[in-house]
């Protein structure tokens, strides 16, 4: 049965160790995702990007962290002190909690490559990311200032509009897989990755995921050019840092979900099983992260009314149609 080196996945101390390790990994990934973004965007704009701190700029994230921690922590006089302080934590905690259910590689007998295998994993993730919106909305509202409020109003409207289409696009995958367990969905893609039968859903998911994480070209919530910094205008120091971390971790999360649901998770393409599944998973996630950065350095920000019109008049009808077609095809084929 379970040897000491393959302890049961449900032992409390195993979960504790796994959580601590995963937390470290995710935070480090955030730090280097940020560096990668600055580097890649720099290259695309014919700049070398950060290259002063450490070899090739590799120590830049550490220096940035120290800078953020040392900065003055300001609370505006008009702010609601409790909610103002709570908001960054809501953002970060929900962003991090998602990793409790994400499987990174194939489950082995007696141990799994995840903190826990929830049989409603995808619902858990959707629920948590929805709570994450509260961080942004409350943060902007509690700042007691003009631009943050506009930012959070936009955040609320944008999230509602795009989350609907996002869920619609995910339901197509759930119908094909017949399960809401993330590991189960990946196992369903052993023969064919779902982005082929669910191509429309895949495209919709990619677009809505950008809007969900407030990334360019859908970064209306931050909109530096028009809203100063949007919801986080009044935040400084470590609290701003928490929002910042949450944004990048959300990026990572939607990349993980896209990988799990559409690109077959840890499944190797063309039967190249020589490379372990965890590596395939990371490659796929890395591809999505790069795609995000690529989009940001390519496209200008959408106008707000166009963003809403695109969400409601294009994405939602297409996603619904895709869902109906998928349901009918699956029902007909039995």
């Amino acid at each position, binding site marked *: 049965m379970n040897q000491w080196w393959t302890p049961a996945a449900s032992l409390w101390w195993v979960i504790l160790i796994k959580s601590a390790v995963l937390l470290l990994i995710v935070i480090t990934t955030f730090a280097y995702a940020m560096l990668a973004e600055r580097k*890649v965007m720099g290259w*695309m*704009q014919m700049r*070398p990007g950060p*290259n002063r701190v450490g070899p090739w700029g590799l120590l830049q994230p550490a220096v940035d962290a120290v800078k953020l921690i040392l900065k003055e922590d300001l609370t505006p006089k008009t702010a609601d002190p409790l909610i103002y302080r709570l908001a960054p934590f809501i953002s970060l905690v929900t962003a991090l909690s998602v990793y409790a259910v994400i499987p990174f590689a194939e489950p082995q007998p007696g141990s799994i490559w995840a903190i826990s295998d929830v049989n409603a994993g995808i619902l858990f993730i959707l629920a948590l990311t929805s709570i994450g919106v509260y961080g942004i909305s409350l943060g902007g509202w509690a700042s007691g200032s003009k631009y943050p409020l506009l930012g959070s109003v936009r955040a609320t409207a944008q999230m509602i509009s795009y989350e609907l289409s996002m869920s619609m696009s995910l339901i197509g995958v759930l119908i094909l897989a017949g399960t809401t367990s993330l590991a189960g969905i990946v196992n369903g893609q052993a023969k064919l990755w779902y982005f082929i039968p669910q191509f429309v859903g895949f495209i919709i998911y990619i677009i809505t995921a950008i809007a969900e994480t407030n990334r360019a070209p859908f970064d209306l919530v931050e909109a530096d050019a028009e809203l100063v910094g949007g919801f986080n205008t009044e935040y400084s120091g470590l609290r701003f840092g928490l929002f910042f971390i949450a944004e990048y971790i959300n990026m990572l999360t939607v990349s993980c979900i896209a990988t799990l649901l559409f690109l077959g998770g840890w499944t190797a393409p063309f039967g190249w099983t020589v490379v372990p599944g965890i590596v395939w998973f990371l490659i796929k996630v890395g591809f999505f992260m790069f795609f995000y950065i690529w989009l940001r350095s*390519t*496209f200008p920000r959408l106008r707000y009314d166009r963003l809403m*019109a*695109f969400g409601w*008049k294009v994405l939602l009808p297409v996603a619904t149609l895709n869902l109906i077609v998928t349901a009918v095809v699956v029902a007909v084929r039995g």
Partner: protein
Amino acid sequence: MPRKTLYNVGALLAGLGVTFKYMFQKKPTIQYPSEKKKHAPRFHGLHELRRYADGKERCIGCELCSSVCPANAITVIGAENSPENRLSPGERHAARYEIDELRCIFCGMCEEACPTDAIVLTPRFEMSDLRRGSLIYAKDRLLVPPEAGVGAAPDDRPNGIPADLGRVAEIKSTDDWQKGYDATFRGTVLKTQKKGLAES
């Protein structure tokens, strides 16, 4: 909603292609402190007061640079040369010569106005300082130290323009000065020589 901008997926992909292509191109960035840009040979930078080969100052304290300066950056106070204290070959020398480098617009008109080619603009451009007062350069910093020879000069710059831009360049010592120098004539010489350059 304009269909052209939102639904033209081909244009979006083309845009992605452009950024992807640029990612691998050579970056034009100059890593400044460790790597410096090569300036044009006649770049207008920090001023310098030159000397003749025998160590005498070229400046005769005529204040032409000061009057021509559009930014009023130059202050010159001239003084008579006495036989025992002879700083320049002419009758007068600059007792004080100060340039406020913060006012200076580096137009080079002082250089053009100078009848003796005493004030020149060197290609040196790194002169930042912590105090405004430190950027008022006086003779102690402007004048070429005696051991440094005649100093960088327009005729010494490796720019392909002939060394004898005007007859002044031929005057290397105080003795040459005595041969006389027609300042009014200089402009014509310059023009004809530059014209000759442009044709060749």
